[in-house]
């Protein structure tokens, strides 16, 4: 099977996945007690006002009808209207998705930039002091709560030294790179230990391979040996680890978005759950589902591209 056929087949698999996500998201949010009309009206809610809003939003119709209406709109490219904001859901998502994508991609890049050299240092001499340090210190990143690390970075680098803004998404590419550095670093720090360990283990494995011994015997210098022969082969398992973790990250950027006040899709999701803004929750869940599938697809494609032994039909 060619690469294109593989990609198309995987993209087609998105359809049942998306339908599954809509069913789960739709019925789960409706199972949770609570009422969007009550949220919006607050203490001024009366049965009459609630009934009026329910009728206006179609929430007085049977649940199956509401789901059918949602799907009907969806196939026509309409994600519905936010009950809370009273604006199209698609607009809310498209305005917030870039911030989350920036966060995830930027964090991924920072994680790679940190992890690759550290893994190389660790693998260059197994069980040496530097190996133990590289393996142990980044583990702190796993144990450190994101909000705490974020707070330290904000206090030191943003408030004390004023190197970065405390919060926000910035504007323009340079603005985004500047403003999103601290939040992305916060996410990356949690990602690094996993990637470093995967990469180190894989490098040690490759270092013992015959072709590396041959390259050494032929007098290939150390740094070149690492970059040209070891890294390219060792990075393959690390790509899988990174891909899986980015999948988790998509659903887990909320705290970082919250602390750094980045109006991303994670923040939208949580706010909408609290407000019982059903159409937004359904749409964001759908987007999350699609993103996870796409990241997995990209991981598979990248894996196959890096390792010619991997075939697309496996």
């Amino acid at each position: 099977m060619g690469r294109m056929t593989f990609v198309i087949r995987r993209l087609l698999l998105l359809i049942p996945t998306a339908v599954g996500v809509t069913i789960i998201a739709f019925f789960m949010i409706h199972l949770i007690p609570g009422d969007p009309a009550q949220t919006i009206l607050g203490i001024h809610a009366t049965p009459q006002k609630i009934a009026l809003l329910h009728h206006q939003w179609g929430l007085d119709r049977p649940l199956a009808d509401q789901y059918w209406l949602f799907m009907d709109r969806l196939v026509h490219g309409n994600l519905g209207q936010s009950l809370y904001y009273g604006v199209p859901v698609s607009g809310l998502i498209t305005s917030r998705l870039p911030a989350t994508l920036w966060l995830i991609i930027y964090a991924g890049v920072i994680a790679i930039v940190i992890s690759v050299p550290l893994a190389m240092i660790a693998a260059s001499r197994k069980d040496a002091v530097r190996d133990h340090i590289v393996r142990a210190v980044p583990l702190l990143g796993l144990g450190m709560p994101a909000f705490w690390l974020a707070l330290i970075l904000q206090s030191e680098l943003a408030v004390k030294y004023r190197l970065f803004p405390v919060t926000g998404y910035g504007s323009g590419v340079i603005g985004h790179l500047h403003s999103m550095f601290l939040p992305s670093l916060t996410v990356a720090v949690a990602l690094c230990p996993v990637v470093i360990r995967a990469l180190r283990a894989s490098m040690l494995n490759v270092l013992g391979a015959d072709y590396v011994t041959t390259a050494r015997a032929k007098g290939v210098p150390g740094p070149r040996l690492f970059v040209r022969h070891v890294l390219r082969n060792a990075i393959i398992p690390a790509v899988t680890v990174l891909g899986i973790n980015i999948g988790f990250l998509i659903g887990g950027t909320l705290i970082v978005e919250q602390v750094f006040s980045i109006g991303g899709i994670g923040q939208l999701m949580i706010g909408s759950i609290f407000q019982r803004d059903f159409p937004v929750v359904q749409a964001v869940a759908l987007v999350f589902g699609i993103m996870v599938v796409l990241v997995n697809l990209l991981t598979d494609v990248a894996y196959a591209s890096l390792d010619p032994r991997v075939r697309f039909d496996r």
Partner: protein
Amino acid sequence: MRKRTALMNFLIAGSAVALLAGCGSSSSGSNNSSSSSGPVRGGNLVFANPQDAQSMDESTIFDNNSIWILEQIMQPLYTVTDNGKGVMPWLATGYTMSPDGLTYTFTLRKGVEFSNGKPMTSADVKWSLEQTMAAKAGWGYIDAAIKSVDAPNASTVVLHLKYKWAPLLADLSLFANGIVPNNYGGKTAAQFYQAPVGTGPFMWDYWHKGQGLKLVKNPHYWEPGKPYLNSITWTDVPSDNTRQLQVTSGQAQIDQFPAWATVSALKSTPSVNMTLFNSTETNYLAFNEKVKPFQDVNVRRAISLAINRPSLIKAVLFGNGKPANSLFPPQVPYYDPSTPGYQYNLAAAKAAMAKSSVPHGFTTTITIPSGNSDYATIATIVQSELKPLNIKVNVQTLDPNVANANFQAQKYDMSLTLWTMDIPDPDELATFGLDPTSGAKSFFTSYDNPTVVKDTHSAEQITTPSARQALYNIVQTDAAKDAFMAFLYYSPYPYVTSSNVRGFFVTPLGNYHMENVWLSK
């Protein structure tokens, strides 16, 4: 015919401001002081809010974060005075009232233009009031006394009432009665409120939902020389700590509602001013009278008497509040400081309990929303303080939406709740809290004292202030003696501002006039 002139109205407002200057609010700095060179023009002020606005539709919105922003765009005929106890002319300059009290004729301020440059006329006022009157799922009830609105000429508006209605001016000062262009300038309501137009000091720029909402200076604003700022951006910053860091780092200039735990430290932070503005926020413990044994006044009294308010204030507000003695807060007209709301007295609590239907105690539940640390603290203290009465309290923590729904459906035993005033008149609160036939069923307690209900509605139609005061004193006393809720504490509004922010002031109703704010160099 009684006539109140513009001069008289300004005198009332002036005395209110003077009174306020005497009462003051606590602050570490003087962010209302002006420099000798006068206000500086220009600049963008960033206002960090804990929550995003929801909608700009003034006739249907109940969310404070939206209300306080839209008030910078759309203005009513009257506005609340700085002490929160009266109104002063705003887009109207005065009114006359017919002898039967059923017709009010308002004169509109000359030279007022919308931000699109079109003059404001009586047709705009008529349209605006009629839209709010028709908002059944919104604020329509606040204008329920208005029968019809006439616009006999461009600068005169006549309101015909169904019955005599004392709170009319207070009702007209509500943001929901803000003036918008006739027929929404040819747009639908939904289109109009995506980028509303008004006569206020600022006009629409953009709203990136969940990120920021920006208003820019209205070049047609009617107050000479105002506003001073070029623009204001409200940002959505849910984390208390992040808002504080933004202000201390200079990324934002105003932090709305910092955490109580940080108030003391912020008071001694040199780069900011920590101000506690007088507010109308009152916190209560509600008893559901549909559940046994809360129909028993002695049980309610016993619980009210067993709660140590100063301890609550120390634990929750870090000392920045006052014990509540009435359903009404002190910043509301007709508040009676001598109202005998129950205060901590364990011996009296035990005596009340002994007289009750459950002298040996009972088991009950206090419901609180999750994620609210203040309420969690109060619930724990109440749980502990009711032990000497042999009342075992289970704390039930629910998702905020569910907790609210259960409260309003009266599926609770005891619940914590609060109120802030929308208008400078006690009528809305009194009806909401004391009338079981209102939509709120006496603050969702089902409390029903026919005398209190009768007096509450009588006070709506008495236009003589002294007679209204006398009646509201009786209402407050009766409600306090019945202990239909335990009145817990009055809380101020905490705000942190950068030290270069000048002229920022919050009324007890929570609104602020950003046209008076400027940034010093």
